[in-house]
């Protein structure tokens, strides 16, 4: 895997999140906060709309890297900052896009930086995946 260079784009991904996705994630994760499926509750606490769970965005954003890596390595660390909410429209949903680039190569660990966007804004900050790739 020594052919990787810093700045190289590895993979991109695109997921359409709908209210169905949010309800499914609520059930799978156990996070039933109603701001993730009820417009009236979201509005009552001053939110611009029903929001995706931050952990759903984080969870889906790493998948392109997992798919790219396959069995050639393993994930050792994954961290994000939740910088902007992902508003999920009740009709059309929202498209979340992910771009993964090589951020740094540190001995046996490769840092992959994710750019994650929705509604024309980046929604995660410092989204970094550290993987150990087999030689």
């Amino acid at each position: 895997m020594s052919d990787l260079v810093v700045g190289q784009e590895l993979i991109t991904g695109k997921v359409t999140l709908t209210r169905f996705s949010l309800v499914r994630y609520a059930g799978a994760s156990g996070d039933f906060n109603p701001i993730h499926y009820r417009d009236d509750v979201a509005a009552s606490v001053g939110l611009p709309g029903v929001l995706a769970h931050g952990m759903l965005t984080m969870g889906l954003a790493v998948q392109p890297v997992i798919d790219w890596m396959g069995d050639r390595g393993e994930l050792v660390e994954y961290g994000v900052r939740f910088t902007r909410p992902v508003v999920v429209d009740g009709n059309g949903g929202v498209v979340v896009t992910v771009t993964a680039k090589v951020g740094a190569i540190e001995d046996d660990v490769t840092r992959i930086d994710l750019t994650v966007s929705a509604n024309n804004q980046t929604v995660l900050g410092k989204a970094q995946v550290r993987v150990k790739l087999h030689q």
Partner: protein
Amino acid sequence: MNKELEGRVFPPTTPYLVGREKVREFARAVFAQSPLNHDPEAARAAGFADVVAPPTFAVVIQEAGLALLLAAPDTGIDFSRIVHGEQKFTSTRPIVAGDELTAILTVTSIKSLGGNDMITAETAISDAAGDHVVTATSVLVMRGTE
């Protein structure tokens, strides 16, 4: 927020038995399509005991630790003002179905910044043998009351 929380270690959570169907359900919910997440045969062929959970599945076990923190009477935490600021997973190995996992949460830092309080909680998750699996680190931001 109670500054004396810094350094507090909470008791271990009740062991969580990771089920195969729960892993599959979680994998579908985060759009994880690898056969390792869904097919026990594919997982075994890759050297795992059963289906492999996506990296962020550890949040489900972390949640049990956070519940202990939020239920403690003397924290000064107002849950209605809490926002999830940051999250990190530091992994020794993936979680697989059949794992019996216990979480121990430690409050590693409490800071005030611009009228908000920030609490960093590290949840160390271990298997039935006591070996480390993954540590989930959350930064929770409690917004100020102006």
